[in-house]
């Protein structure tokens, strides 16, 4: 497939035109900024329809093989789509656990049967996926997962509980990490990986109310739940390996994701606009030199991140600490976001005290809401404090 600049430019034009015609109108309720924020049925219905529309237009899973529902095109096409989705501030493509984690894993490590069974439903949003890694008592310590899976004839019997199950109540399948052998020589070797149905008997979910007041996560309970034995992916004992591979898709931009567009970014551009619209001492806040100084610093840090991303692809410029850019991206991005959002709330004058259901709230209280939601990013997937340890130990070589 052609990837010369002119062809790509024409393709970008085409996508942009399609988006202008097809991005849905404001539905009148709060749209999730990230896939983790889907908390109501109306949000879900809206996002399912939107994902399907994008898929049917040919703009999703573009680099996935045609025989399973993809388009078999070079990845650069999907990158262009993702960039244009961002440029147009399109609604998110929400089925992220499927598109970004389960899908790439199945395509890379799965059997032919698994590919046939699962891939297309991920793309069409017919099958919503959720993730079952974390457990209530072992937040930062995945290897210690205690949910048990015991083989019983053609089934596994599952007992235990998983937490932070995004899309739990809507999920058709779960990528599930469970312990098949408590006596294994290492705790890691006792883990297995399942592509588990969510509708099996004995599986229930209980929604978790978030700090924002909304829903979007669940706790999943397994109470003698029985799932078919063929749900085991790979062999027993390979769970840790498969889970780690999955997390690599999460951490890297360069995985096999069907799309990497899973959030509507709020960036320093929006912060600038916010400062233009707020009055303080009778003038737009953007004219305040102290505010300007802080905004410039945020823009600079944001640009650092973007440039680090580019530099990470030039190994000759990464010889000092070869792992540092790869390991520090999540920490920097999520912490910068947190600081920017907290700052944006502080700028709003009395309106900073308003919240999402107030019509007078600035931009629908996007900053307040975004600040709170952002904790899922500085806590989930390894807290910022744990991330910093990892960077210290693996990039700098400091002792544990």
């Amino acid at each position, binding site marked *: 497939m052609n990837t010369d600049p002119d062809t790509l430019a024409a393709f970008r034009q085409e996508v942009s035109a399609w988006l202008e015609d097809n991005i849905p109108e404001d539905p009148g309720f709060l749209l999730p900024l990230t896939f983790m924020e889907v908390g109501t049925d109306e949000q879900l219905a809206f996002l399912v329809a939107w994902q399907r529309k994008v898929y049917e237009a040919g703009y999703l899973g573009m680099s996935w093989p045609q025989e399973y529902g993809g388009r078999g095109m070079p990845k650069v096409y999907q990158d262009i789509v993702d960039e244009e989705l961002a440029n147009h501030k399109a609604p998110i493509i929400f089925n992220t656990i499927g598109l970004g984690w389960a899908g790439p894993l199945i395509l890379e490590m799965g059997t032919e049967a698994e590919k046939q069974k699962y891939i297309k439903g991920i793309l069409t949003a017919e099958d919503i996926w959720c993730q079952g890694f*974390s457990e209530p008592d072992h*937040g*930062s*310590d995945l290897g210690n997962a205690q949910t048990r899976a015991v083989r019983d004839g053609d089934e596994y019997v599952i007992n235990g509980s998983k*937490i*932070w199950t995004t899309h739990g109540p809507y999920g058709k399948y779960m990528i599930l990490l469970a312990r098949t052998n408590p006596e294994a020589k290492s705790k890691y070797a006792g883990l297995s990986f399942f592509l588990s149905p969510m509708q099996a008997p004995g599986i229930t979910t209980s929604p*978790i*109310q*978030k*700090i*924002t*007041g909304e829903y979007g*996560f669940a706790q999943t309970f397994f109470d003698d739940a029985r799932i078919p034995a063929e749900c085991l992916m790979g062999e027993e004992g390979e769970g840790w390996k498969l889970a780690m591979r999955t997390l690599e898709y999460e951490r890297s931009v360069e995985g096999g994701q069907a799309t990497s567009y899973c959030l509507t970014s709020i960036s320093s551009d929006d912060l600038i606009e916010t400062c233009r619209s*707020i*009055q*303080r*001492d*009778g003038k737009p806040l953007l004219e305040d030199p*102290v*505010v300007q100084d802080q905004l410039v610093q945020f823009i600079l840090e944001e640009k650092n991140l973007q440039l680090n991303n580019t530099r990470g692809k030039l190994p000759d410029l990464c010889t000092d600490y070869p792992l540092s850019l790869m390991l520090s991206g999540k920490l920097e991005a999520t912490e910068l976001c*947190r600081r920017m959002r*907290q700052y944006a*709330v*502080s*700028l*709003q*004058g*009395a*309106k*900073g*005290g*308003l*919240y*999402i*259901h*107030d019509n*007078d*709230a*600035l931009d629908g*209280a996007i900053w*307040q809401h975004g600040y*709170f939601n952002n*904790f*899922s990013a*500085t*806590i*989930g997937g390894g*807290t*910022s*404090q744990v991330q*910093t*340890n990892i960077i210290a130990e693996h990039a700098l070589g400091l002792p544990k």
Partner: protein
Amino acid sequence: MGFVRYEENKSYSMRFSEEQKMILESARSFCQDTSSIEQVRKLLESAQGYEDNVWQQLVELGWTGIAIAEAFGGSELGIEAVVPIVESMGRNLSATPFISCTLAAQLLLRAASPEQQQRWLPKMVEGQIATLALLDNEDWGADNTTHQLSDDLVLTGEKWFVDDAATAELFIILTQYQGSARFVLVERNQLSEGAIKAHALIDETKRSAKVDFTGVTVSADAVLAADNVEAILADIKLIGALLTAAEAVGTTSSCLNLVVDYLNTRKQFGKPIGSFQALKHPSVDILIKLEGARSQVYHAATLFEEGKGEIERDLEIACRMAKASANDALLMAGDRAVQFHGGMGFTYECDAQLYIRRAQWSQQQFGDSAHHRKRLAPLLLN
């Protein structure tokens, strides 16, 4: 080697009388009894945000009259006696219209004629709820109002962030009358149907509303006597800043306790997480910010006592520093409380959410930190 001493030649007065101590002890136990965290959560969804019987008890303790002259039935103490009460309320996230009523009374004491005072202050001592309606929009830095009182005494315009409007009997409105700023009184029964629209606040323990006064006709004696409205307004904003700061100091302290308890309880990697310096050292930062803010608050309270209500340069500095310090302490405490609770911290069920929400609300009452630093600059640097 090692010690550094700061010059102590300037006066940094701080005193705490036996009377203040008794008030503080009484307020702490009252708030503990009437505002447990379960009680706070129960009130989150209620319309008025507090319970009448708690307010009644508070009235009986004499606190609604604590800073009102004896002539009107009060105890004739000053803001220095209000501070320990508000701090205790903050500590327990106790929600009552106490701050609104205190500010309204302070305004009447400064701006109303003796007749106007005699009409309203005794009722307020007895627990009638009054509140201020100052803002036209989000800009507490603006020095004018678009609200109008016509020559024939009809009001036009809405006010934002009218705290405790849902139960207030008396509204004190900042308006423009014949070309200059004035305060005017409106009673609840003068409002038209639907004039009060509750704000959806980020802090679910607090209550505030947008109130439309358009069309209300007032009598001549509802216009407050004072014509030095800007000066009085400036005083009231400083008192408001100080009381919010005192409240925030109390809140920061209980937020820090929540964090410390969790760090001592929760184990990861086989150790209580409080043994990790990455959590331990920021907790100390919160403590240090809290202690500084608390000192500023009680210093300002002392200057109030010394000045007998007059607000001079030193007191203005103290109020602004107290508010800036308290904002920063509570903002950090709320933010870290969520983060340090890990996954639990991200849930509504975890009490950290109450604190991070209060922090966002509190910083915006009577000015955020940047605002106060900006106002402090000419006072300190010229």
